[in-house]
C-alpha cells in the first residue's frame, strides 16, 4: 500500500502542484491543456517524464523547459554605497521605459537578461547598499524570471495552498493547526477513524496520508454526499479508498437509537450533480441549501481550484457534445445502472453502519462549519475508551460550550482548549528578523481522551468534573526552557 517515493516521475493524469516562490496551485497533468498560473500561461506536456521537484522555465509558446543551474551572473564590479543619504526619489532612476520593457518581453528575451538590463539602466543601483541591491535583484527576478517547480502533492503543500488560496473552503484551518490535529488524534496506520469535516476533504486527505492505506476511515457527511475535492488532489493510489467508508450525519440519530434502516437513502450526490449540470445549475430540488451556498458537489473537477473561466467553458462544451451523442444509448441503460448503483450504495451504507455500531473507533476528528457540541455528544458514542478526539472550530466560543457540555456528559478526560501561533522568519546574514506579517488566526482546538462512561453515575462524574476544572498549575516547567 506504499506510494512511490519523492523520486516518482511526472506522468500524464497525475495530480501535481505548481510552485512559484511561495505560491502553489494544484493541477492535473494533461496534454495540450492550457494552464494559467501567476499571470502566465503554458502547457505541461514537456514536464511529463521529469522527476517531481524539477524547476522549469516558461519559454515562448508556453512550453516548459527544465531550468539549467547557471552561476549567478553578478556584476563583476561589486560596487555599492554605504547609506542612502544621496539617493533621491525623482522617479527617473530607471532609464528603460515601460514600452522598452514590453518590447524586450515581446521579443522573447529571457527574464534573466531583462533583469540584467534593468540593473544596468538603473542610475541609482551602484549607490544602493549591498543589501538594497540584493533586495532589488530579488524583486525584479520574481517579476521577470518565470520559473515554475512541479512538486508532488502532500498534506504540507495542499494545506499551505488551501490556507493561502481558499481559506473559506477549509473554515480557515491553518496548516499548523491541522498538524496539531493529526498529532493530538494519534493518527497512524491501522487506526479505525471517524472523520467529520467540511474542509473540502483536506482533513480527510491528511488523515488518509498518515494512515498510508492501513486501517479504516468512516467519513460522516452532511447533505447529499461527502465533499472530496481536496482529497483527490493528493493523488492517492486506488487501494487507499478500499477502506474509506462514508455515513450520512442525518442517519446518526437513528443508528444510535436502533431504528436505522437503509430504505431511505440520502440524495445521491452524483445524481444531484448531474441534474444540476443538465439544467445549467438551475435545479434546486435535490441539493440541500447548505451545499448550494458553500460547497462544490463532490463530482466537480477537483484539481484546479482556480480554473479560469476560459477552461471551464471549453470543458463543458466538449462534454456537452459527447453527452448528446450518447444520450439515447444512455437512457436505456440508465434505469438498470441506477438500480445497480442504488443497491451498491445501500450495501456500502450497511457496511459503514456496521462499523459504527461496533462502537470501537480509535479516534474522532471533527473540523466543520457546524456547531461542534451536538456533533461531539453524538459521535463520541462510536469511539472506544482511552482514545483521543480532536475538534476544530474557527471560533473559540462554541468550543467553550462544547467543553462544558462534555464535562456534564462525562466519559472524557484531559480536555484541553488550545490555539497555535505561527511565526515565519527571514534569515539572512545580518538581516534576520520575523517576517513582517503573520496570520491573525488559524482556529482553535478542543482535544481530550475518552474513558469508560459509567451511566447512571453522572453525579460522581460531575463532582470529579468540577474537581478537574481547577486551574492548571505547573503546566509548563519554566526551568525546562532552553537558554
Amino acid at each position, binding site marked *: 500500500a506504499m506510494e512511490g517515493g519523492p523520486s516518482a516521475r511526472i506522468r500524464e493524469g497525475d495530480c501535481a502542484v505548481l510552485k512559484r516562490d511561495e505560491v502553489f496551485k494544484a493541477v492535473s497533468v494533461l496534454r495540450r491543456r492550457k494552464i494559467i498560473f501567476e499571470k502566465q500561461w503554458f502547457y505541461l506536456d514537456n514536464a511529463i517524464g521529469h522527476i517531481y521537484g524539477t524547476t522549469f522555465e516558461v519559454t515562448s509558446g508556453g512550453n516548459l523547459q527544465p531550468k539549467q543551474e547557471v552561476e549567478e551572473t553578478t556584476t563583476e564590479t561589486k560596487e555599492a554605497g554605504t547609506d542612502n543619504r544621496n539617493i533621491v526619489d525623482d522617479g527617473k532612476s530607471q532609464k528603460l521605459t515601460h514600452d522598452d520593457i514590453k518590447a524586450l518581453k515581446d521579443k522573447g528575451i529571457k527574464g534573466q537578461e531583462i533583469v540584467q538590463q534593468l540593473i544596468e539602466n538603473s542610475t541609482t543601483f551602484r549607490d544602493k547598499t549591498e543589501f538594497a541591491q540584493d533586495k532589488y535583484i530579488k524583486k525584479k527576478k520574481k517579476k521577470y524570471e518565470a520559473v515554475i517547480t512541479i512538486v508532488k502533492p502532500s498534506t504540507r503543500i495542499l494545506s499551505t495552498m488551501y490556507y493561502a488560496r481558499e481559506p473559506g473552503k477549509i473554515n480557515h484551518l491553518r496548516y499548523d493547526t491541522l498538524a496539531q490535529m493529526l498529532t493530538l488524534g494519534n493518527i497512524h*496506520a491501522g487506526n479505525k477513524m471517524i472523520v467529520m469535516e467540511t474542509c473540502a476533504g483536506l482533513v480527510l486527505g491528511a488523515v488518509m496520508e498518515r494512515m498510508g492505506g492501513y486501517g479504516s476511515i468512516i467519513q460522516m457527511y452532511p447533505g447529499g454526499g461527502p465533499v472530496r475535492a481536496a482529497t483527490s488532489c493528493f493523488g492517492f493510489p486506488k487501494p487507499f479508498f478500499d477502506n474509506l467508508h462514508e455515513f450520512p450525519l442525518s442517519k446518526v440519530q437513528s443508528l444510535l437509537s436502533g431504528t436505522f434502516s437503509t430504505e431511505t437513502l440520502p440524495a445521491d450526490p452524483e445524481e444531484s450533480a448531474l441534474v444540476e449540470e443538465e439544467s445549467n445549475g438551475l435545479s434546486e430540488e435535490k441539493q440541500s441549501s447548505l451545499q448550494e451556498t458553500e460547497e462544490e458537489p463532490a463530482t466537480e473537477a477537483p484539481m484546479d481550484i482556480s480554473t479560469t473561466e476560459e477552461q471551464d467553458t471549453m470543458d463543458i462544451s466538449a462534454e456537452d457534445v459527447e453527452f448528446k451523442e450518447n444520450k439515447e444509448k444512455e437512457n436505456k441503460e440508465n434505469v438498470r445502472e441506477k438500480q445497480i448503483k442504488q443497491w451498491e450504495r445501500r450495501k456500502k451504507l450497511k457496511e459503514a453502519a456496521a462499523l459504527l455500531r461496533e462502537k470501537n473507533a480509535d479516534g474522532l476528528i471533527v473540523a466543520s462549519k457546524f456547531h461542534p457540541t451536538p456533533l461531539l455528544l453524538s459521535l463520541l458514542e462510536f469511539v472506544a475508551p482511552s482514545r483521543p478526539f480532536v475538534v476544530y472550530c474557527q471560533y473559540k466560543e462554541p468550543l*467553550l460550550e462544547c467543553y462544558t457540555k462534555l464535562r456534564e456528559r462525562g466519559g472524557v478526560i484531559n480536555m484541553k482548549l488550545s*490555539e497555535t501561533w505561527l511565526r515565519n522568519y527571514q534569515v539572512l546574514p545580518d538581516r534576520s528578523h520575523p517576517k513582517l506579517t503573520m496570520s491573525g488566526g488559524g482556529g482553535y482546538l478542543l482535544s481530550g481522551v475518552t474513558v469508560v462512561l459509567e451511566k447512571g453515575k453522572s453525579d460522581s462524574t460531575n463532582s470529579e468534573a468540577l474537581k478537574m476544572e481547577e486551574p492548571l498549575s505547573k503546566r509548563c516547567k519554566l526551568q525546562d526552557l532552553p537558554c
Partner: protein
Amino acid sequence: MSFVEYGDTIKDGDTAIVFLGHESMFPVKVQHGSVTQTKYGVIRHSTDLIGKKYGSKVTCSKGGWVFILHPTPELWTMNLPHRTQILYSTDISIITMMLELKPGSIVCESGTGSGSLSHALIRTVAPTGHLYTVEFHQQRAEKAREEFREHRVEHLVTVTNQDVCKNGFGVSNIADAVFLDIPSPWEAIGHAKSALKAEGGRICSFSPCIEQVQRTCLAMEESGFTEINTLEILLRVYNVRTVSLQIPDLGKAAEDNSSPGFDSSSPSHQGSSCANLQQGTVQFKSGVPLREVVGHTGYLTFATKS
C-alpha cells in the same frame, strides 16, 4: 498494546498511563504481582489492571480512583523520564507534517535525547518505515534502546551510538527526511545530505538561538538545499472558566427603576451568559490564557533536497 498499535485490554508487560486528574499522571510498567503507589492508595497490577479495559476507572486501596490510559507518543511525551531537554507535541506536530512523514517513510534523527520525538516519528512511519536515530551519549543511547524494546517498537528503529557531526547517520542515500536537534547542526548538514535519498527529501533543524539558525541556513544553502524556511510555533492553552463581573452602581436604580443600566441587546444577555441584576453581576464563559506560558522553544528550519 504497543506504541504503534492500539489494544483493548491491559496485558502483562504493557506500559500504561495512570491518570490521577488534570495534568497529573505517570507511566507504569504492568507486571504480574507488582504494585503501584498513588496518593489514592495502592494499585495491585494482577487484580486491578491486567485484563481490564483501557480507559477504565480503577479504584485504589484508599477508595480513591484513577483512570488507566493506553499509551500514545503524546502521553509519553508528557510523562517520560527526562534525560535531556525534550521536544513537546506542538513542535513535533509541525515537524512531522513539514517533513512529510507517513507510513513507509525512512527518517534519520539526531540526537535521540530522551526519545520524545523518536516515539512520535516511529508511530508515524510504522509499519513499513524505519527510524535511524543517532545519540553520541552512550548511556542515553542504551536507555533509548531499552525503552523501544519495552514499548515493542524496536523493529522500527535503529539506535547508533556515535557523533553525527563526525560520523554521520551510519546510512546513506536511504532517508526521506532528516531531523537535527544538536548544538551545532551546521556541522551535520553534509552528513544529512548524504543520508537523504539521491532523488531528494526533506530536512529540519531545531535550534533555540538565532545565531545557530543563521549558521545552519548558510550551511544548507552551501549544500544546495532549497526552500529554506525558518519558523516558530507557539502553543496557547486556555482555561475554560465561568467569570462574573460586578455591575457598577452608578446610582441609577434610585433615579429610574425601569432602566437597569444594562443594554438588553448586549451579547451577555444571550446564549450561555446571563445577567443577575439582583446580585449586581454578569456571568459569562471565557477561555482564559494561562498566567505563564512557554514563549520560546526553538526555531525550526526546514529545507528540501531535490
